[in-house]
């Protein structure tokens, strides 16, 4: 047996060959330039039809989750809205999937594909619900599973929410590699893929994103069946972009081309994502701007050569909410609607409250996920942990919220207002990143067309902006 060099630089240099072997898929078939690739063909050539995906998901307890109307919360929003305003708020109860979140949709097709191709196991690098989803789907397909997680700071302290997510992975039979803070998670993933020869269940493969499309299709058919119309807006908690991309693609598949696709993240601006110190000063482990903004403005910063999750391709607007606002709305969901759900899934519910207030009464806004809750994964755990780590927690105006310093929980529903992220600014950052990957003067017509589609703008907009880069 030959021993390979496992230093950081040597493993990173082997990334392309490792990824090719671990997915049985060659991205070179789709790549057209350092920025452009044939996205739609890549998504099609997964080889699965929508009907296949539904069938595969039913085998492993995924999908067909209830769509619930939040009557009391809708009534409360109407009370504080201008006359004629206050859309009906619906929530898709994704906690009903095996492993307790929409991430089961994302893991299900990867697990099926890994088993079909004869891999003995699968690997995912994630500190989110995706780990439990991969472990649960792998268990049902007779595959081994390794989840690689960023859990601890250098003192060995882990956020209760991440510790719980690790526990869930172990509960479903996975080996969990628990690491300290650092971007070397990807290095660890590559090393482990190479050592084991397992399947790379990356969050960002076409299999993962296609698996989420069923969520959009279900929303379309459930809303139509009950309200005889299409949803006016669907709000999606946004981090890596897969949730938004898959749901939006599903809605389009079902013909909902007038539905507004609204991204929402918790605003954590000012906190560094790779900082050992800041790690435990965040009270959200995902669904925040620390992932949402960089992934929107450069999707290809991931563990596969080209990302299938491309949020700006589908996003119409982007709402930001504070940690305090989400905790407040989570508590309202529990007390007014009798539903206790995990905080990360309630990020989009918070944005839905502000949107519903501005939308007409006859309109419908859908919150497209919930997640399970329990010890660690609960807003009370997160707030108690924050306070223990020196973060100020108080009631007040959420405008006074400072990420990493103060969590201000609103006193009244009319203080839940969030703020809007400037889409033009996001699209420009994306173009700047594209220019870094491939100099502007080398952009071909095909590159411009790709960028326009990836940013949901016309090619003229790209041509005009490229001059100012």
């Amino acid at each position, binding site marked *: 047996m030959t021993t390979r060099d496992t230093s950081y630089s040597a493993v990173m240099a082997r990334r392309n060959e490792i990824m090719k072997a671990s997915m049985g898929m060659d991205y070179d078939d789709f790549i057209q330039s350092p920025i452009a690739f044939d996205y739609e063909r890549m998504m099609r050539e997964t080889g699965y039809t929508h009907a296949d995906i539904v069938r595969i998901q039913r085998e492993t307890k995924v999908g067909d989750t209830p769509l619930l109307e939040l009557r009391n919360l809708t009534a409360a929003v109407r009370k504080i809205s201008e006359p004629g305003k206050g859309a009906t708020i619906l929530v898709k109860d994704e906690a009903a999937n095996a492993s307790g979140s929409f991430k089961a949709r994302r893991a299900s097709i990867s697990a099926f594909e890994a088993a079909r191709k004869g891999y003995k196991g699968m690997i995912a690098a994630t500190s989110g619900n995706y780990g439990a989803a991969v472990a649960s789907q792998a268990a049902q397909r007779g595959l081994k599973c390794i989840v690689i997680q960023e859990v601890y700071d250098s003192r060995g302290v882990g956020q209760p929410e991440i510790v719980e997510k690790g526990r869930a992975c172990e509960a479903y039979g996975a*080996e969990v590699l628990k*690491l*300290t803070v*650092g971007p*070397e998670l990807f290095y660890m993933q590559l090393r482990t893929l190479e050592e084991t020869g397992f399947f790379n269940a990356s969050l960002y493969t076409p299999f993962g994103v296609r698996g989420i499309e069923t969520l959009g299709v279900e929303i379309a058919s459930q809303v139509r069946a009950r309200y005889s119309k299409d949803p006016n807006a669907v709000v999606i908690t946004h981090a890596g972009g897969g949730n938004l991309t898959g749901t939006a693609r599903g809605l389009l598949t079902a013909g909902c081309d007038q539905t507004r696709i609204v991204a929402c993240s918790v605003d954590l601006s000012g906190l560094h994502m*790779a900082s050992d110190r800041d790690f435990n000063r965040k009270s959200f482990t995902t669904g925040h701007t620390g992932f949402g903004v960089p992934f929107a403005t450069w999707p290809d910063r991931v563990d596969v050569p080209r990302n299938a999750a491309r949020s700006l391709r589908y996003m119409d607007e982007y709402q930001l909410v504070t940690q305090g606002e989400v905790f407040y709305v989570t508590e309202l969901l529990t007390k007014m609607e009798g539903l206790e759900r995990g905080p990360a899934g309630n990020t989009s519910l918070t944005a839905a409250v502000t949107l519903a207030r501005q939308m007409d009464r006859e309109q419908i806004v859908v919150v497209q996920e919930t997640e399970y809750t329990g010890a660690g994964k*609960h807003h009370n*755990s997160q707030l*108690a942990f924050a306070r223990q780590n020196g973060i100020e927690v108080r*009631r007040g105006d959420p405008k006074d919220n400072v990420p990493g310093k103060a969590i201000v929980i609103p006193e009244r529903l009319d203080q839940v207002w969030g703020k809007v992220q400037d889409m033009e600014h996001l699209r420009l950052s994306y173009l700047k990143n594209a220019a870094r990957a491939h100099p502007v003067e080398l952009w071909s017509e095909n590159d411009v067309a790709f960028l326009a589609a990836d940013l949901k703008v016309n090619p003229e907009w790209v041509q005009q902006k490229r001059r100012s880069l």
Partner: protein
Amino acid sequence: MNQIQPGTWVEIEQVVLTPEQRAPTLPEDTKQVPYLLRVSGFLIEPAELGDPARIRTIIGRELSGVLKTVNPSYSHSFGTVVPELLTIGTEAER
């Protein structure tokens, strides 16, 4: 002395990268500390806490590191009471 028997469920710790070996672009605080791994499994040969040890993980892989914990378990909870949450959405507030 206090030998842990083979087959016991334990957690080991491994230095994956020393500070010098870490990724080139890191914030200052992260750059100062090693990149550590912890993983649980069944102990293969007898060892004492703090000794080098080998484990077989739940999926059967053999890994090595320093023996850190015997019978690692979870104790995360719902946290201590957060009074700010108690009255939200109740009659007291409406």
